[in-house]
């Protein structure tokens, strides 16, 4: 299971990186979504996978062969934040498209050139 998940994370990261490097802004945003999901899975995997056991910590604070709940709490937070950011990104893109009528990242050169 760990290996499968690791391979899936790798595929998601490469797909995300590929999309982020495209010239279209929409693909760029989709790339960001995929990258953030890959990161969430990475936290999930590195927190350690345990099948079919409840979350429990004994008195001394040690986890005794049971599921650790905190990576899931972290992911939940990260997913919620990710949602907010995707919504804002799309809104910003919609506004940019209305103003410039372009989906091409090559048109985003105006603020970089020295003296316009």
């Amino acid at each position: 299971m760990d290996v499968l998940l690791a391979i899936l994370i790798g595929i998601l990261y490469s797909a995300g990186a590929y999309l982020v490097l495209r010239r279209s802004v929409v693909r760029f945003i989709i790339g960001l979504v995929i990258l953030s999901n890959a990161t969430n899975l990475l936290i999930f995997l590195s927190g350690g996978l345990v099948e079919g056991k409840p979350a429990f910590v004994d008195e001394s604070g040690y986890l005794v062969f049971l599921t650790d709940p905190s990576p899931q709490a972290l992911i939940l937070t990260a997913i919620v934040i990710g949602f907010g950011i995707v919504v804002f990104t799309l809104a910003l893109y919609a506004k940019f498209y209305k103003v410039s009528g372009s989906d091409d990242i090559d048109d985003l050169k105006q603020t970089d050139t020295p003296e316009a």
Partner: protein
Amino acid sequence: MNIVIAPILLPLVFLVVFVFIKNTRVGSPLAILGFGLQFILSVYLFYQILNLKIMVLQVGGWQAPFGITLVIDQLSAVMLLVSNLIAFSVAVYSISFVDKYMVASRFYAFFFSLVLGVNGAFITGDAFNLYVWFEVILLSSFVLITMGRSKDQLEGGIKYMTLNLMGSLFFLAGLGLLYGKTGTLNMAHLAQIVRVNPEAGLLNSSAVLFFIAFGIKAALFPLHFWLPASYHTPNVTVTALFAGLLTKVGVYALFRFFTLFIIHDREFWFLFLSLIAVFTMLVGGLAASIFYEMRRILSYHVISQIGYMLMGLVVFTPLGIAGGVYFMIHNMIAKTNTFLISGLVKKVNGTYDLHQTGGLLKSHPVLAVLYIIPALALAGFPPFSGFFAKFTLIKSGYEDAHYWLTSVAVLTSLLTLYSMIKIWNKAFLREAPSPNEGFSCVKLKIDELLPSAILGIGSIVLGLGAPFFIDYLSEMAVNMIHPHNYIQAVMGDLENLTLLKP
């Protein structure tokens, strides 16, 4: 000790209030009141920290590695003090520079949420919580930077947003790996674990991810491209606020992480960081010298001076860390001030372009005095703050035999001086090239000049009070390099809990 949570609660209350306020007449005074209260609060906290050294709040009563901990130590206290001073002056400045349209689209609400995020980032003692505060800062800054909705702003906003989002993803991935390896994200607990564990070198994968994340936020050399592409597009109030607060939160995070728990492999990290610091200083300084648009010059200077702060971290002696933090607080104040002045120059001369400005020394002598204070402070003249900050840094660099790094720091301050003199000559000293009477007789109101005056006094106080600040910061630096007090204050009687996972 529940006062610890106040720097988060106070802006939150005002944030909620400002969701309902849409007009300028009520909005501006209320915002100034809010930021004034926050500044008073941060002065009070700073005063408390002078005696107590550290204040801890375990949120919800959950003992340290299991719950979220809020910690105000000496570094947090001084950062809170300076950032709230800046927020207050920018709030005063916003009376004349933020139009009705921006207030109606909740400018002040996002201003408060930005400050909420900055305060939260400074006082949290939990690495994941720091990520959450970073996102609060990011989302409010996205809204602020695109608020005018012109094509330039949207374009600058997209660049700013995309690179910073990538930074957040790196940060999050680093946190995930860190949790997998240590089983905790509490900073004090992490510090404790890496100090007893011989396998701490395994943290390097997370350390690299953190470095990239904070490097993007702090605009370090190969990761800085978003900053000059976006900082000159929004309303000048927003730019001044960003220049004072945003990149410095990244630098603060670097200082926190690289003194508290990323302390292994020092040879590799410090060689690497010193190279980055050299290039950051030089690239920023050189790029600034070719521009004639004031905000662009100042934006590149933001980058150049991040290099000095990093230099303090590279030297890593108590004097070096103290110098780095001293430079950071000096720079936050003086840099915000120069951006505020650039807005005033634009108001009088009608442009940011130095080819078309001029004659301000004659027509607005007060403005010229207000400009020369932060300009000389940035270039490093006594008795202003920059002299003592640079002196401390350069002294610590030579003492620790970082000759290349220190020489570049000296050279870069000449570049800074060149740019400051360029603005002085082109905007203040010379006659206006084309006398446009319509602009030159604009009288500046008291509320436009006041914020610059406050920050100018800040620069002078920071310079004349150097003995006090150096003492304070040196003690802070010793406590950062040997964080036993920090660990003990946060972990309490769980001080010997070194591993969570069997």
